[in-house]
C-alpha cells in the first residue's frame, strides 16, 4: 500500500459507510480497505455511528394490514413448500397403484402386460422389503386453463402485490366496458384508494376507484369503450383519485 494512495482515499471512509460513493469509487475504496489497516480500523470504528442512525428515527405506528399481508404470503409459501415436499416423497404404494392401472390398461397386449406385471412385482418387493419412499417422477396435471374469449388474466407486480390475482371480464361486445375483479390486494389505509385506468395510444384515462375488503377482494368497472384500447391498469392514489397515475401500475391487463 502506498502512502499516496492512502492519503488520496482516506477521506472517502465516511461517504463509503453512508453509501454515498459512486459504484466505481466504492469498488476502489473496498480494494483499499483490504490492504490498509489504518482505514480498515477507522471504518470499523465509524460503522458504529452509522449503525446508530436508524435508531434516531422516532417510531411511527405501522399499518395493521402490513403484518396480515406479510404473514399471508409466508403461510402461502409454507403450504406450497409442504405440497412440493409431499409431491417429491410419496409412498411407493401410491406408485404401485398407478403401475397396476397401467398394467391393466396394457392387458390386451400380452408382451407389454408381462413386462408391466414384472415392474409391479418388483415395486411390491421393494415396498415390502425396505418400506422405502420413491421419488414421484410423474408430472403433475397441468393447471386447468381458465382463459375464455371474454376473460383476460391480470398481470401483477409481484414485488408489491405478492398474492395478487384477478381478471378482466369483457362483455360479448367490447363497447359496453368491462368488470375488473381482483383478489389478494392489501386493504389500503384510510385516505388511499385503488384507481383503474384505461390506456389507449398515448392517453391514460381514469375509469373508476375502488377499495378492497379485509379479505383482499374487490371489483371495479371499466366504463369506457375498450375498442382500440391497449391496457387496463391499476395504481394506488389518494382518496378521490388522481388526474394521472402517480406510480407504476400494480396490475396490468393487456388488451
Amino acid at each position, binding site marked *: 500500500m502506498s502512502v499516496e494512495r492512502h492519503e488520496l482515499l482516506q*477521506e*472517502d*471512509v*465516511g*461517504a463509503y*459507510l*453512508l*453509501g*454515498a*460513493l*459512486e459504484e466505481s469509487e466504492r469498488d476502489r475504496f473496498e480494494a483499499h480497505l483490504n490492504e490498509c489497516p489504518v482505514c480498515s480500523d477507522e471504518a470499523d*470504528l*465509524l460503522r*458504529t*455511528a*452509522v*449503525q*446508530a*442512525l*436508524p*435508531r*434516531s*428515527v*422516532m*417510531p*411511527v*405506528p*405501522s*399499518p395493521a394490514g*402490513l*403484518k396480515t*399481508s*406479510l*404473514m399471508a*404470503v*409466508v*403461510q402461502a*409459501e*409454507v403450504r406450497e*413448500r409442504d405440497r412440493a415436499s409431499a409431491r417429491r416423497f410419496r409412498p411407493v404404494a401410491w406408485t404401485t397403484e398407478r403401475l397396476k392401472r397401467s398394467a391393466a390398461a396394457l392387458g390386451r397386449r400380452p408382451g407389454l402386460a408381462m413386462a408391466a406385471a414384472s415392474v409391479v412385482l418388483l415395486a411390491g418387493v421393494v415396498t415390502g422389503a425396505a418400506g422405502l419412499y420413491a421419488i414421484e417422477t410423474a408430472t403433475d396435471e397441468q393447471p386447468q386453463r381458465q382463459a375464455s374469449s371474454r376473460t383476460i388474466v391480470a398481470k401483477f407486480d409481484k*414485488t*408489491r402485490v*405478492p398474492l395478487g390475482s384477478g381478471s378482466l371480464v369483457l362483455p360479448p361486445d367490447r363497447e359496453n366496458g368491462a368488470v375488473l375483479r381482483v383478489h389478494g390486494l*392489501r386493504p*389500503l*389505509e384510510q385516505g*388511499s384508494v385503488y384507481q383503474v385506468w384505461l390506456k389507449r395510444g398515448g392517453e391514460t384515462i381514469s375509469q373508476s376507484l375502488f377499495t378492497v375488503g379485509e379479505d383482499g377482494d374487490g371489483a371495479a368497472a371499466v366504463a369506457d369503450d375498450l375498442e382500440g384500447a391497449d391496457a387496463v391498469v391499476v395504481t*394506488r392514489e389518494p382518496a378521490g383519485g388522481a388526474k394521472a397515475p*402517480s*406510480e407504476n401500475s400494480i396490475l396490468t391487463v393487456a388488451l
Partner: protein
Amino acid sequence: MRLVQEGHPRAFELLYDRHGGAAFSLAYRMVGNRVTAEDVSQEAFLSIWRSKARYQPDRGSVRTWVLGIVHHRAIDALRRNLVHEKRRSSAEGIEERHEAPEREQTDVEAARREEARHVRDALENLPEEQTRVIELAYFGGFSHSQIAEMLQMPIGTVKGRMRLGLEKLRKGLKEKVA
C-alpha cells in the same frame, strides 16, 4: 434467528413483532409516504424470509441487521421511484418529517422513543453542516456528488464533513453511554 433461517413461520412472526415497527418507521422516514414505506418493509421482511438471509451475530444485533436490510431496500425504492425527484426539489423531505402522534405507549415503545431521543441528541450536537450531509446521504440516499451539487460545495468538503461528523457522532454516543 436459527428458527427463522430454517423457515419456521412462527419464529419469523416473532421477528416481525419485535422489529417490524422500527423497520416501518425507518422506511417511512426515508421514503416519506406510508404506501411506499409499507412496500419497502414488506420487501425487506420477505427477503429475510425467502433468502433465509444469514445473520452474523459478530456484526451487530438482530435489529441492526434488519434495519440495514430495510435501509438498502428504501434506497432502492428512492432510486427507482419518482420520490427522489420530488424530494430533490425541496430539502424538507430530508428533515425529520414526522413526530408520531401522542398516544398510549407500551414500555417497549417508550424505550424506543428514549433511544431515538438519545441518538438524535447526539446527532443534533454535531455542527449543522455535518448533520446535513450525513442525513442527506443516509436517509435521502443521495451520493456525495449529488449532495455537493445540492449544497453547492466541493465534493472534497462533503466527504470531509461526512467523515468528521461520523467521528463526532461516535464519540458523542460513547460519552452518553459512559
